Structures are given as C-alpha cells and as structure tokens.
C-alpha cells in the first residue's frame, strides 16, 4: 500500500517535471521565433515546404473521401425529410468547423509529425546536434525553431485545402451522383455557413498546428538516442498529438458555442 502511494507520487512528480520542461521548451521556441523569421526566412520556408508538401497528397485524398462520405450520410438522412438541398450544408459545417482542422491535424501528425520526430531523433542519435553545439551553433535555433514554425505555418493551409477538397467530394456525391440541384446545393451553403464558422475552423487549425508541431519537435529533441528510442518517440508523437488535438477540439468548441 505504502509502495503504491509512493509510486503514484513519484509518477505525478515526474509528470509535472516533464510538463514544466515542455512549457519551458515551448517558450524557448517562441522566444527564438521572431529572430529566425526575420534573419533566416529561407530556413523556415524550406520547412513549410517540407511539412506542407509531404502531407499534401494524403490530405487531399482523405479530404475528398471524407467530404464524399459526409454527403452520402447527409443525403440518405435528409432525403427522408425531402431536405436534399441541405446535403451540402451538412457537409460544409462538418468540414469547416470540425473535420477539416481535426483530420488535418491527425494526418499531419502521422505524416509530417513522425518525419520531424525521427529526423530530429536521428540527428541526435548520430551526434549531429552535438556537432552543432560544438560549432557554437544553437541547435534549438538552427534545427528546431524552423521546423516548428514550418509546421505551424503549413497547418492552416492544409486544413483549408482539406475542407475545400472535401466540399468538392460532397459536390461529386450530392450533385453528380444523387442529382441534387447544383444551384441550391451551393446557395444553401453560402446562405448558412457564416464567417464565424470559418473563423472557428481557422482558430482550431492554428492551435492544432502549434500543438502538433510542438509535440513532434519535443519528442524528437528528447529522443533516447538509439534505434529503439527513435521508434518509440515517433509512436508517441502520433498518440500524444491525437489525444491533445481531440481534447483541445472539445475545449475550443465548448468555448465558442
């Protein structure tokens, strides 16, 4: 019994310590960000390209199918009430407010996040980060900050692309397959989806972008520098990002209703 309590206490202390270190790490990244953006924009642009281009194909394919399946579900239910015209609206709301940012963040974690973690982890395992330290180059500034910013900048664009392609998928099913009138399909969307709905999606994608990039970079930087350690770190990146994104999604939605 005593053992159990002391185990719980130790775990709690360990958790708080890690969480504190994580916050300090975040502040360090933020602190260096303006200088890197001003003086070394090339580094950031390269990472935006890396993170964005890597995830683009997977995000477009998934977006198309998510949009299509939303339209399928919406049409089959709405048609019971003769409300087929609303098929597009249902898909648009779901995509812009929820699935766009959330699915993008999850896919980003699986594609670009794991790549970031394993890249940084391997750089650590092969002494590249130590070599930078020895060349008097701060690896946090030179390696981590550009990668963090790359993810943060890429995510809102990816989420927007996901939603746009998703809407096209909904159009394909609703208009082309089920013959919903194309005019009312799009006009209903235009009339019902407000700018505040779009803003909610943008806010979410920015927050998720920060969270996903931060977790990927943190896990990479704190990898146990062995083959096994890098493998574990990439797995943790996906799991922790997924949990964080879904919890944040709930909190942001609750706050904005």
């Amino acid at each position, binding site marked *: 019994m005593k053992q159990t309590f002391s185990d719980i206490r130790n775990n709690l202390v360990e958790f708080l310590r890690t969480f504190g270190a994580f916050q300090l790490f975040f502040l360090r990244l933020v602190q260096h960000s303006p200088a890197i953006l001003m003086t070394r924009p090339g580094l950031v642009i390269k990472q935006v390209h890396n993170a964005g281009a890597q995830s683009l194909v997977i995000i477009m394919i998934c977006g198309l199918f998510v949009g299509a399946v939303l339209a399928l579900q919406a049409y089959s239910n709405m048609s019971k009430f003769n409300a087929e015209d609303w098929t597009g609206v249902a898909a648009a709301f779901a995509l812009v407010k929820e699935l766009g940012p959330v699915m993008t963040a999850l896919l980003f974690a699986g594609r670009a996040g794991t790549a970031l973690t394993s890249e940084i982890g*391997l*750089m650590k395992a*092969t*002494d*590249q980060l*130590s*070599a*930078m*330290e*020895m*060349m*008097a*180059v*701060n690896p946090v500034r*030179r390696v981590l900050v550009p990668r963090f910013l790359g993810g943060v900048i890429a995510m809102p664009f990816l989420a927007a692309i996901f939603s746009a392609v998703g809407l096209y998928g909904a159009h394909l099913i609703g208009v082309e397959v089920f013959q919903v009138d194309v005019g009312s399909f799009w006009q209903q969307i235009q009339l019902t989806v407000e700018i505040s709905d779009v803003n909610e999606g943008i806010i979410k994608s920015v927050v998720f972008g920060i969270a996903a990039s931060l977790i990927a970079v943190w896990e990479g930087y704190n990898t146990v520098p062995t083959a096994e350690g890098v493998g574990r770190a990439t797995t943790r990146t996906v799991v922790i990002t997924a949990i964080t994104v879904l919890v944040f999604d709930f909190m942001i939605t609750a706050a904005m209703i």
Partner: protein
Amino acid sequence: MTGLAEETLGENSEKLIEIRDLKYSRGHRAIFDGLNLTIRRGEITALMGPSGTGKTTLLRLITRQLIPQEGAIYIDGVDISTFNQTELYEMRQRFGMLFQNGALLTDLTVFENVAFPLREHTKLSNRLIRHIVLTKLHAVGLRGAADMLPAQLSGGMARRVALARAMVMDPEILIYDEPFVGLDPISLGVIVRLVRRLNDALGITSIVVSHDVEEISTVADRSFLLSDGKVAASGSPDELRTANSELVRQFMHGMADGPVAFHFQAPGYEEQLLGRDTE
C-alpha cells in the same frame, strides 16, 4: 580559483587545458573520481584507456557539453563552468571537434557541411566561402567529393570531411574522438598523417581519444592512460611502453587478462553451476 588561474599563467604558459580533481558520475557509477591532467599547447595529447573508462565523456566535459559534479576545468586559466551561453559559444569557436562517426549533417552536401560554420558565424561572400571550403577539402584530399551527400561517402571519407569541417574556422584546439576506429589500413594511414601534419603546420593543439595503441603511439607527444576514473599513467609513448605498472603493460601489449580482468564480476563459477547461488 583565481589563485590557480594566475599561477597557471604565471608559472607555465604552455599549459592550455588543466583538469583538477574532476569528479563525474552517471547514475550510481562514478566515471571520474578525482581526475587530474594537463594538456599543453602545441602538443598532440593522447587520451587512452580500455573502453568504458569515459574517454568520450572527458571530451564532452572539456567542451562543457557535460558539467562535472565536482572539480574544475581551466582553459587558459579560466574556469569554464563560469561561462554564460555567449562566452561558452565563444570558447567553443576555439575548438574543432571530430566526432566518432563524423556527425555530418545528413541533409547537406559535403561542400555545405564544410561551409556550415562559415555561413553561421561569418558574413563572408559566397566567393570567399567557396574558396575557403575548397582549400580545406583539398587539404583532406576530397575536393572532388564536394557535391556528394554524406550518405554516399565511405566511413573514412566521412571522417575526412568532418575533419575539414572541424578546421574550417581555424580552431586553436582540434579534438578527435576515436579517429582510427573502423578504418581500412589506407584510410587509417591517411588520418594518422593528417593528425600530425595539421598539428604541426597550423600550430594547433590536438587531443586524440583512442585505444589503438599502435597508431596513437606514432603521433602522440604525450599520452594519458585512464583507468578507474583516474590517470593510471602518463608520459611519452616510449615511456608508457617500458613502464613497470601491470595495468599499463596489459593495455600497451593487449593482454587478455591482468588488472583489467577478463571475467566480468560474477559469483563463484562452481557455486553458480551447482545452483547454490540461488539458495
């Protein structure tokens, strides 16, 4: 602290790095337990010892990638533990370090790897950077590999590129971590010759960590044999070879058993085989 610093500079300006009563432990295992040694300017100093004696750890302590629990390290008489981040980076610019596996940046070409410190620390024109990088690559015989990626290089070539990168900022002190491990005889000969030639031609100080007794003996001016967290013996390679100590003899002549036991610590053989140790 300042007393020692003044004394160092006053009495013997040859001393470049001094390590005093260094204690460092990882977990419960003491790696250094009161280590003292001095590295002199302009010499090639070899740090030798059986694997696991913390030779690489010592390099990381000297460059303050690690911080000792006790004791101090002085460079030019200044205690390096007093440096803030800026001073630390200034100090590190006086060093060039060759890592065991080269530690080249995998996403950059050979040329960009060597150019990396110049691009980070100077505002030199591209023309001048190109000039310097090609000169350094020429010195290690790899001017022709400038456009290759690190993944395309053999182990020996990667180490030579890393050497070119380590000296591109013209450091005062070059540190080599196991430079001879895993090289074919030709690459090995090339590296051994480079270590000596760079040291003498550039007038720098070299620190070489190695357990290759043969190779290191041909280049080192002074060797330290580390064991059990202390300096077990020191002197020129010839002095070490003829030393009386059991441990030094075992190490220098590569004998399987001796003060460094062949058997890892274990319960009695007979007892364990008969299963009595579990009772």
